[in-house]
């Protein structure tokens, strides 16, 4: 990933959010993680005009107020936001969610492993892949 730019984590569960931050920390992969608890707050953050655009968004699906699929629809219909890659990180393995999110061109769909070492492996694979990939400059 591009360490200088923040990673946006949209996740309502505090324990899961702490696990992601801890794994990224253990891997020394991201300097700053911005964590917001639902799609509505994440959209407001992205549209505020003052916050630095994240290099990548990690998105949970089941959240109150605005869930992951609703958030995806909004971001992908917004010309100024649609270029930010979004990776789903969820406990749901339902076909409906997998298909529904790939129809909105998510850039990956990871089911959260319950076991912490496996969870770190998943975060590491995400971090390695998005370090290898070029990312669009933040606009």
């Amino acid at each position, binding site marked *: 990933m591009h360490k200088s730019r923040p990673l946006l984590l949209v996740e309502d569960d505090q324990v899961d959010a702490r696990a992601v931050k801890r794994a990224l920390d253990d891997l020394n992969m991201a300097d700053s993680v911005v964590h917001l608890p639902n799609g509505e707050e994440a959209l407001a953050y992205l549209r505020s005009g003052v916050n630095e655009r994240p290099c990548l968004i990690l998105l949970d699906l089941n959240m109150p107020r605005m869930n992951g699929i609703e958030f995806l629809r909004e971001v992908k219909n917004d010309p100024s936001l649609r*270029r930010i890659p979004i990776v789903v990180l969820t406990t749901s393995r339902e076909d409906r969610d997998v*298909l529904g999110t790939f129809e909105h061109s998510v850039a990956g769909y990871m089911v959260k492993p319950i076991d912490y070492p*496996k969870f770190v492996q998943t975060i590491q694979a995400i971090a390695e892949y998005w370090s290898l990939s*070029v990312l*669009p400059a933040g606009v």
Partner: protein
Amino acid sequence: MRNAKPVLLVEDDNIDAMTVARAFKDLKLTNSLSRCTNGEEALAYLRDPNHKEPCVILLDLNMPRMNGTEFLKIAKSEERLKSIPVIVLTTSNEERDVVESFRLSVAGYIVKPVDYKKFVEAIRTIDLYWTLSELPDGETGVENAQVETAVAG
């Protein structure tokens, strides 16, 4: 990759296509590799019901007849094709190409390493990521269980 579907490589350069095939072989990837030499051919391939839908598409950008960006514009507007993840694999790291590709919702943009060992590493990273990621194919259950065992091992 996560499932046994073929990977579609869209690449006009024969040497580059051979390098990808060689890396797949060296990494013992079980996915077969189908190849088209430009965007037009790739669209025809994907629209042909006799061909198995690929799990992911590896897309070069600079190609004759229909280039990668033109291909993306059409593929991402077609209901049947838009869910297939497309990973750009190119020599261009021009900002214009990167921004345009992500605006068209690519799922990664890899600049081809010139060094073969690094190239193999890049393909290994792509394979690991798309083995962990679910794919929109409806093929779950036994297959996923096997993948998890393989990852754990």
